[in-house]
């Protein structure tokens, strides 16, 4: 390519980019307008739900307004879930006095609730267990695999979504420290 041809091409590309950058705020506004939409993704509002505990007490996500909540989907046949849950317990004990709650949602539509309850009780977990009997919540939360962890901030906004073992004790502690630091 000759020097002249390259110069013309280069300047043209630079000018197009510059005009595009200047036009972006005018043509494509609506930045961060998603905070009122419900979706299981960072930045959106966590979809609301109402479920029952094994002893038939009814709880809703909205009961925990103003508090950070970890929604943790699990099954008793899932070994990764069982490896993760004791770690959650120790963070729970640490942060529960400050209002933190864990809703451990058993995917009962593909699990045996009896097995799930006996496992949960045998481990001495003190956070809240809920049953997703018909799988409707799992559908709403686009559950592709367990464990699925959805960390919800005090304003009801999704802070983090992790599939698999990533919601470890250390990671959850770091995230909660962040949330409480921002609030103070």
């Amino acid at each position: 390519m000759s020097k002249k041809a390259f110069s013309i091409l280069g300047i043209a590309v630079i000018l197009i980019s510059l005009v595009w950058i200047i036009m972006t705020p005018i043509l494509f506004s609506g930045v961060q307008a998603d905070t009122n939409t419900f979706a299981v993704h960072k930045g959106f509002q966590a979809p609301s739900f109402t479920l029952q505990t094994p002893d038939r007490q009814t709880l809703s996500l909205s009961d925990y307004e103003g508090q950070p909540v970890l929604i943790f989907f699990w099954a008793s046949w899932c070994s990764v879930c069982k490896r993760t849950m004791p770690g959650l317990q120790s963070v729970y004990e640490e942060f529960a006095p400050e209002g933190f709650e864990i809703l451990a949602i058993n995917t009962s539509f593909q699990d045996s609730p009896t097995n799930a309850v006996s496992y949960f009780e045998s481990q001495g977990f003190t956070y809240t267990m809920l049953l997703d009997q018909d799988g409707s919540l799992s559908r709403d939360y686009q559950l592709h695999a367990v464990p699925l962890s959805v960390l919800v901030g005090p304003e009801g906004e999704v802070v983090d979504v992790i599939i698999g073992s990533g919601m470890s004790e250390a990671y959850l502690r770091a995230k909660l420290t962040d949330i409480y630091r921002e609030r103070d």
Partner: protein
Amino acid sequence: MFPMINIGPLSIQAAGFILIASLFIGLWTTTYFSKNLGTNGDMIENSILLGLIAGLISARVGFILQNPSALAGNPKAVFSLTPSMLNSSFGIFVGLLAAFIFAQKKHLPLWPSLDTLAPLFLFIFAGIHLSNYAIGNGYGLPTNLPWGIQLWNESRHPVNLYALVLLSIYFLGIVFHTKTFKTIGFLKSGTLFNSSLAAIGFITVITRAFIAEKILIGRFDLWQLLGFSMLLLGIALIYSRKYQYKNHISVFISLGSNQKPDKNLPEAISRLEDFSKIRGTSSVYKSKDVQYETGSSFFYNQLIEIGTRLSYHDLRLKLKNIEKNLGRKPDNKKTVPIDLDILTYDNDVFFNEGKQIPDPNLIKYKYIVIPLKELAPDFRHPASGISIEEIINQLKDDHKIQMLKEVENGFEA
């Protein structure tokens, strides 16, 4: 969106799988490319590996430094294999720095090595967009366009697909231009890397406009501004390297003759002097004809370094002219009054008019390497960065060559 990939009974997280796959495909292409270019593939791979390890470790260290409370209950968690506890920007920064320092220590030539890495960077860029598409990150603004995708409760611009389409167009151009990674495709080293840098910058500027979650600096998106800087840098580097010639480019030329060498070698040099500066001349060396075993006849070889402003193409024409004027017949391989070969052209690595530069013979034959050591003891191979000593150690040519002294009217052993 497809956050999980199911292969038989196995469920794999799509994002991580795609990123690792793009890294492997990119590495494989870079290794293949490096073999064809003659760059130091092993060292380039080693520096990438070192960069990856340093990057991963520092990404974890960065996370811990930022969130010291993470280890409060269980200090062993610092070694846990979860990908969530990583500070990726710190990791990328340290990883690149480590790879760069290692490459410097190993004398890897900057621009040819970066050219070799261009396909890797393009594959990683594609991998990031594809994995974001898989998990619904970097989602677009709502749109009514027919190709909008259903994501997070709206029909949205498929921003990551826009980027992949634009990247594919550029990538096809590169595949065509490099003859499917057989050559570098440009006469100036660094052009391939710099144009890829500009292309990635341009694609970022264009596609970030459609992103819903912008990071604003004033009115403008941070990533658009970064993309624009990459575009400017890429174009400026191509322009300054390709079109702003330094005063004189250094070129090593090998001279050979088996007909009246005592007359033809000095004559060729004096004709070269008509259009270039002679920067250095080696002694004359005598050896058996190694390329076309012509029996008893001996070859006389000499190496010179010239400074020239001529383009590679023009320089080759001038050399052909000198060969012709001194009586060389192109189809006669046995009787060679004078043979002039360009060994290196500046520090560039390219393939042009059927010739590879640096000349592959540069690391094959004693009659070139030995005079080169005499002429330029600090020489390093422009493509691989290996020193003249290493080139000599790796030679497989066991022909004898003999340094000759110049006396009046001829040479003498």
